[in-house]
């Protein structure tokens, strides 16, 4: 797996260099190393997660099934379970999903509040997949099959995966300010969003969060109050609020 990633990385940077974008590839490589894992949630969710220091960001399967006793088991749920088991095998339920981001902003379709995780909180327990696992498995028809090598990186080698995926898009004119969009492309619908997916093993809470990004000028009265409260909470927790 590692050899395959190294090969993809090397070939992609060579191709970039060949078309005169070697310096950009080197910058992207460096930028890839400073990316963070970001989870997104709605303002409603954020107030729950940030408001309660003991709340764990957990896989939903593992959380206490206290709310609905008669939760159904839909037939097509097998599909998602297949994706999880294809990528992670038996420990799929232990995985928390995040997106790789340079600027601390995650895919907006998952919620307007982005939580940037501290590097130290994920470094030893995260891997990065080239794409959203659902799309990755589905588009390649990988159900029940092994993942192709070279598309999954450890946290320490995420820069290689970033280059392997994106170096071909670089041109001599590409500026480093464009990297954020290249690494995570926002879109109006979830299916059009493009990002590298981070898989974090195990739960985390607010202690693992470095900063939070959210709407700086909400228009609804309720959201104004919520954001004011979130800022106070983060302040009390010693975390940064970044308005966007």
């Amino acid at each position: 797996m590692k050899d395959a990633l190294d090969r993809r990385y090397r070939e992609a940077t060579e191709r970039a260099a060949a078309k005169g974008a070697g310096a950009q590839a080197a910058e992207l490589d460096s930028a890839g190393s400073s990316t963070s894992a970001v989870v997104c949630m709605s303002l409603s969710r954020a107030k729950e997660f940030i408001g309660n220091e003991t709340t764990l960001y957990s896989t939903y399967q593992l959380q206490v099934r206290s709310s609905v006793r008669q939760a159904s088991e839909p037939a097509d749920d097998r599909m998602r379970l297949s994706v999880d088991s294809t990528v992670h095998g038996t420990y799929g339920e232990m995985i928390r999903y995040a997106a790789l981001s340079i600027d601390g902003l995650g895919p907006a379709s998952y919620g307007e509040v982005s939580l940037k995780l501290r590097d130290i909180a994920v470094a030893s327990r995260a891997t990065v997949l080239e794409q959203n696992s659902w799309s990755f498995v589905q588009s390649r028809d990988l159900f029940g099959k092994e993942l192709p090598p070279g598309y999954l990186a450890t946290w320490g080698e995420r820069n290689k995966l970033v280059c392997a995926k994106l170096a071909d898009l670089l041109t001599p004119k590409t500026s480093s300010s464009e990297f954020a969009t290249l690494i995570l492309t926002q879109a109006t619908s979830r299916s059009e969003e493009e990002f590298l997916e981070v898989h974090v093993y195990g739960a985390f809470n607010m202690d693992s969060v470095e900063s939070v990004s959210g709407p700086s000028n909400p228009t609804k009265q309720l959201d104004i109050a919520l954001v004011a409260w979130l800022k106070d909470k983060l302040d009390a927790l010693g975390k940064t609020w970044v308005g966007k």
Partner: protein
Amino acid sequence: MGWEMIETVFVSGKDALAYFYEDEKWYSLSAEETIPVSASEVRRLVNGGGEYYLLRGLSKREISDALVKEKRRADALFLTLAVLDEQASISTRVLLAQQADDLLLESSNRDFVLKRILSWPLPTNVTAARHSLMQIANTFNHVAMVLKEVFNFQPDLHEVIARWRESAEEVGISQAGLSSLRSELVDAGFFRAVLMATVERNLHDLNSIIVTNLLGGNWSPQERALLLDFQRRIQSSMKRTREYEKPKPGRLFKRSPGADQNKPSEDPFRPDLPSNECASPQEARLNAFEAKQRVDKQINCIKEMLFRDRLPLAEKYVTDLMRFQLGRDDQEYAVMSLCNLTASALDANRLGFADELIKYAMELGPNDIVAFTARAEVLRRRGKFAAALAAFEEVISRFPARTYPLNGKANVLKEIGHFEQAAQLLRRVQSDFPEDSVAFNEEVGVLRSQGRHKAALQLAVANARRFPLDPVTRSVLAGSLSRVGRYAEASRHYQQALALDRTEVRFIVGAALNTHSAGASERALRYLEEFLKTSPTEVPLLQAKAQILRSIGQFSAAKGIYESILRGFPRFIPAVLGLRAVAVLEDPIVAAENKVTHDQLESELDWTGFRTYAVALVAADRPREAIQAIEAALPQCPWLGQRDRLKTTLGIAQMKNNEPTCIQTLQTNLESLEDRQRQARLLFLSHAQIEQNRQSIARVLLSRMVTTSDRGIQSIKEHLLRASAGKNTGIGKVDLSSGELELALAA
């Protein structure tokens, strides 16, 4: 096709999302859009703590409506809780309260919020900040309404949840099972409903809540057992609490001219006066000294009415007093008066009345530590230990540098048998306030409660060395010596305590009772007489004298003293109980007719009254009834010391009823009893052994273990030793001598 019914819908106000299943696909519905989603996403979110409700058979329009409704409810809850959040700045809280107020305008939202918040007690730091919170909330009517209810019911909520925890422990349900059950019950508004029934003391409502929930849920046998046990515990605590019946409007209020006569006041004592209005121009002209004299006179009058059992007059005078003090803008002094009267109401065993007085004092003096500490003490005296603990913690959180609430909390911990925690807390106080003797002396009390009398004595000696000039410390040492039978030394220390403070009547009483315990009853009586010459109406001295007379069989003289006390103060409970005890000894058949049920017992004195009744039943040859009454009462008794005494009475009743189990009962907890109680138990145990034809065991117990020089006990001991030697003493028919009955009443 908006009219088509959708069978499975999950709605969460918390997540502001609904998921529904249609044409074999899942969709997510938010305020903005409806999008198809994977089933796994649905499952993740639905099980993810978003509190999704399963709804069935809704059209899309109805799903939309349900989502809006749920979101408004969830927002109302969140915003109300956020207003309570101490980490939020004042300006943020104002913003939050403003939003909350809009949502709480809807009664269904208010109901939802109260259902949730009144399902678990608020943290101490929140209740401690209630006054500053209410200042913000008061600008927003509906928020203020909700928070006032939340804060007002906290003490009762602490009690309800304490009972819930006890039931959970009793049934032994797993943590996960408990969490799941609780979650469902919170959703159903169960705890708030139980709380309301408790506050209103409405047994019918309580039973109907339990039955409805039992029928409505698919409960496991363990869950059902928990609910039923909870019902039983709440029922008995409800029966125990005697609420103060507030006077009817118009009966007791003297309304000021111009006050709305039709508007019932929420507070029985609050005069309907503007805060700066005097009752009369003459009152306004009184100088400070004259005002104080008048207040003192009014307070004494109210106290007298409390002890004379003339509650309506006491209420009227309190109203007058408040009108006078508040009319003069003496709010601070009004709080002091109310605290003072609360103490008297407690002494008169008017617990509900005391509670009302102190609640009003807290309202008038939101930053008055004495009022808040006194409220916690009232809760303790009512046996509401969970609420008392929370109340003390609240005071500690607000006034961390004061010793009273810390010592008070330790006292509650002692009452509920958390001796180690109590001792640790007291040691902390000792370290922080090394010059204050109270915590040092309280620790002696903790050791005594544990039955560690030798350790208590050692500590009392050390304390006396540390505070050689403190009379209370000296009297604590004297008490500790007396408890282990070292009467002569105890006497010396009582005298030293008296030399340090000649005005403290408790030392005189302690010295007299110690002398009596040492077997010198006549000397003890003479000693008391000396003091009574100069203070003939000093009630504690009269009580002590009557107690000694009673124990040496001079019932008429004792009765005369009790009656003379009660002529002046018909509500002085120790005298009432003393008189009942004499009645038990003189005419038990009549005394046993004055039935006392355990349902309405709160204070320790209440329980003493119940025990007296149980002894009367035994003496009246109705031991089976005594056993039934005690067995029903024992689990309901919150006072650990009283439980030990009740067990002694139970053992005696079982012995009288020829039940061999009496031996086991009388041996229960024997080693941890204080000396006089243990000696009494040993006597009854010896008697029980004789009744079971185990004379040799009885002789060993009597000769080796009953070692006190207390004349009453010695006399019974000799009587029993003769019986164990086979001499004809009437033993065998389980007759209890009057000495034994007296001991049963006192021990």
